[in-house]
């Protein structure tokens, strides 16, 4: 039984100055179908989504929605036709309540022009009940978890009689349990005949919930495949345009001498953490979001305050009162929030690469342009950062290349210990693999790396040893063959009674 086509995209082309962002793309989304859109960063996914949701106008081709020609002039028109978009980063008003967000710009009125809060609360409650959640419509959005904020966005889209829901990287900041819940919701939507266009880097998820997969590469549609007739390997090949033989480099660390040891660390969000890190080793920090992994790293580096505990670097007791002290001791923390905390988006590649080592490119306290450019050029070359030139603004680089710049700025201080917090989040498969190989190469040169990641395959593929954290405590340590998905999840998700 063939399903009816809901949205038909026909030969859509969009040209930006000098670049064809998408070129003659055609695809159909059927009614009640979950359709995946995959591709590396810069493949044209966002452009296509922006055209469908009325943000951009195509330069060629046409859209047919529900058998009618469809050319939205703006996002509001797209919403009115029944197309809802949930962005990667939620676009809600944090100071307003759930109900006010759901009915943003469409709050129900009482006679006399006063807002009818009671009706808004009741209606929101009804909508939320469809998702079997007990979210309170009166709660301010800023007090919700990322997962619940996303749910509010979905509810908001559905409240406008949405028939095609576009989800852009919906799981990138969700925990596994929250992801499961999202999948359940998607399943329910499907049963109600709502189509979902699902954009994700995470192929495992795509294979679980999508019926068909469309692959974009460099703005061109490579293929649309039925999920049942393909596999991850094939999709990756099509996305990258080449074979990736070894997704992860071979493990070989763990035999060097100890470089960092911490004992009984306690801080605001964690208690009694002890571990050691060897030269050339990749130590994983696994656990659910909010387990306190980033907090431990930040406290060791002197970014957040540390309450008690000892830190030994190369056998010497140290205490970093500020992050600057840690950097001088060549211990660095690579933030999980690339855009807000890692980069100066409006500044050049050079400026972003030299920020940590300004004093190395000076002469008599003055910055020497030749020196800073030479330093930047060295890391652009070493990390194969794709940029038109050194003076390109960061905002013009792709996610993967931006992340390489962040890595580069820390390599510039010649680190001995590097905490990498979600270093491959939101970057494409090709760049991810490059970064993984780079991390191993750094280890070979004697750096100790602590890898904080919420992606279990990454932890399992990369780490020589793994510490699993649970509610601010160290739940266990795994090494060698013990590093498996089951073992990690058992430690990460078990409710611990002894912590009380």
């Amino acid at each position: 039984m063939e399903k009816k086509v809901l949205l038909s995209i026909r030969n859509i082309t969009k040209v930006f100055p000098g670049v064809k962002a998408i070129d003659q793309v055609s695809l159909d989304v059927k009614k009640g179908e979950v359709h995946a859109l995959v591709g590396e960063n810069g493949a044209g996914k966002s452009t296509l989504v922006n055209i469908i949701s009325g943000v951009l106008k195509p330069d060629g081709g046409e859209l047919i929605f529900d058998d009618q020609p469809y050319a939205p002039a703006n996002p509001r028109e797209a919403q009115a036709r029944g197309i809802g978009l949930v962005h990667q980063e939620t676009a809600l008003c944090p100071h307003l309540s759930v109900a006010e967000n759901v009915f943003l710009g469409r709050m129900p009125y009482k006679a006399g022009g006063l807002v009818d809060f009671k009706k808004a609360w009741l209606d929101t409650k009804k909508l939320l009940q469809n998702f079997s959640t007990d979210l309170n419509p009166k709660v301010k959005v800023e007090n919700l978890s990322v997962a619940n904020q996303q749910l509010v966005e979905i509810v908001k889209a559905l409240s406008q009689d949405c028939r095609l829901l576009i989800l852009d990287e919906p799981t990138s900041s969700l925990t596994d349990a929250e992801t499961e819940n999202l999948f359940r919701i998607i399943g329910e939507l499907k049963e109600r005949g709502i189509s979902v266009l699902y954009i994700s880097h995470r192929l495992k998820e795509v294979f679980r919930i999508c019926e068909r997969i469309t692959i974009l590469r460099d703005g061109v549609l490579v293929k649309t495949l039925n999920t049942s007739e393909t596999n991850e390997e094939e999709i990756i090949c099509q996305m990258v345009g080449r074979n990736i033989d070894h997704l992860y480099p071979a493990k070989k660390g763990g035999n060097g001498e100890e470089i960092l040891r911490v004992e009984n660390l306690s801080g605001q969000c964690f208690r009694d953490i002890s571990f050691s890190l060897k030269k050339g080793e990749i130590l994983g920090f696994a656990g659910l979001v909010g387990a306190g992994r980033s907090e431990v790293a930040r406290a060791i580096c002197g970014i957040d305050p540390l309450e008690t505990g000892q830190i030994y670097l190369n056998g010497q007791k140290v205490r970093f009162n500020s992050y600057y002290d840690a950097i001088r001791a060549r211990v660095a923390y690579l933030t999980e929030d690339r855009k807000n905390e890692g980069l100066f988006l409006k500044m050049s590649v050079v400026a972003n690469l030299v920020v940590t080592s300004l004093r190395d490119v000076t002469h008599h306290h003055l910055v020497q342009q030749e020196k800073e450019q030479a330093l930047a050029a060295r890391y652009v070359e070493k990390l194969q950062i794709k940029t038109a030139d050194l003076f390109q603004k960061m905002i013009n680089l792709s996610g993967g290349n931006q992340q390489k710049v962040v890595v580069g700025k820390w390599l510039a201080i010649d680190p001995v210990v590097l905490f990498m917090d979600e270093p491959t989040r939101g970057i494409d498969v090709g760049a991810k693999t490059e970064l993984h190989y780079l991390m191993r190469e750094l280890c070979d040169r004697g750096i100790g790396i602590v890898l904080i990641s919420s992606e279990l395959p990454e932890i399992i593929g990369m780490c020589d040893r793994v510490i699993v954290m649970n509610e601010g405590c160290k739940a266990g340590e795994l090494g060698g063959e013990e590093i498996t998905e089951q073992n990690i999840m058992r430690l990460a998700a078990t409710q611990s009674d002894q912590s009380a």
Partner: protein
Amino acid sequence: MNPSLEKQAVQSGGTTKQKGILSRAFAIREFSLLIIIIGCAILLSFLTPHFLTVPNLTTTAIGLAADGIIAVGMTVALVLGGFDLSVGSVMALSGVIAGSLYLGGVNIWIAAGIALVVGMICGLINGYFIGRVGLNPFITTLGMMSIARGASYVLTKGSPLSLAGISKGFKFIGGGQIFGFPMMVLIYLLIVVIMDFVLRRSVVMRQVFYVGSNEKAAALSGINVSKVKTGVFFLTGTLAAISGILTLSRFTVATPNAGMSAEMRAIAACVIGGASLSGGEGTILGSVLGVILLALVNNALILLNVSVYWQDLITGMILISAVLVDFLSHRSRFLRD
């Protein structure tokens, strides 16, 4: 291996090369401003014979120096992503303090020194609350603006202090000339040259750009953000005090009304010169050109016998036009992402 990517690289490379030197020069804000200023000057010299005269140009230059020195500090504050509303009042306070001390029998140079220190302290207080405590720069400097202005009125009981019989040496720094060049303009130029160099080249000032561009990322790159912020407000306060002392020397009168809305003129000049209120952008040269353009317009109104009341109206229109041109020329880029 990846033909379309290569093509894209070639295309974008090609377009930059096709752009001539001229269009690239016009992309630099300072160059366009310079052309506008020269255009205005040429137009003005045809409209009135009094414009291109030594006395007129000298007076205009001395007149803009006081605002110019304040605008230099304001540029750095804008690069930081903040601004200092208290500079006009601090300028008045420093003049008033030097004046009252002198009238109380203190040597004028010592009095000027103390006034300078008071300006620095005002800056440090702003810096402490903004940098260490984390208060909002608008509120903090708005408060300091009121405090410094109020203190000036208290000290003078509201009326100007005349510094009769002040030493020639002190009068020289604000009113003297070297080879026909007014001292005040020379001091302004010296500050401009030093600050321009320092802003572009010194490590400390580079850190100001980083903090202005992204404060969180700067902190997570090991930059001591609160120290940088404190330093910037120390600088704006210091330059405001210097401007106040020079003005005192020029007029030998300490008025509590000195520097009225100088902070607004300085912010306008810097923004016209390309500084951004959202931080991370701005040059000293831009602020100089902005100050010159505003002074030129003022001069034109006087020479053409237009009521001086038109000045604020026209300044406002120039400010909005400058920001508008900037916005329109950048908008295509915003739309892309």
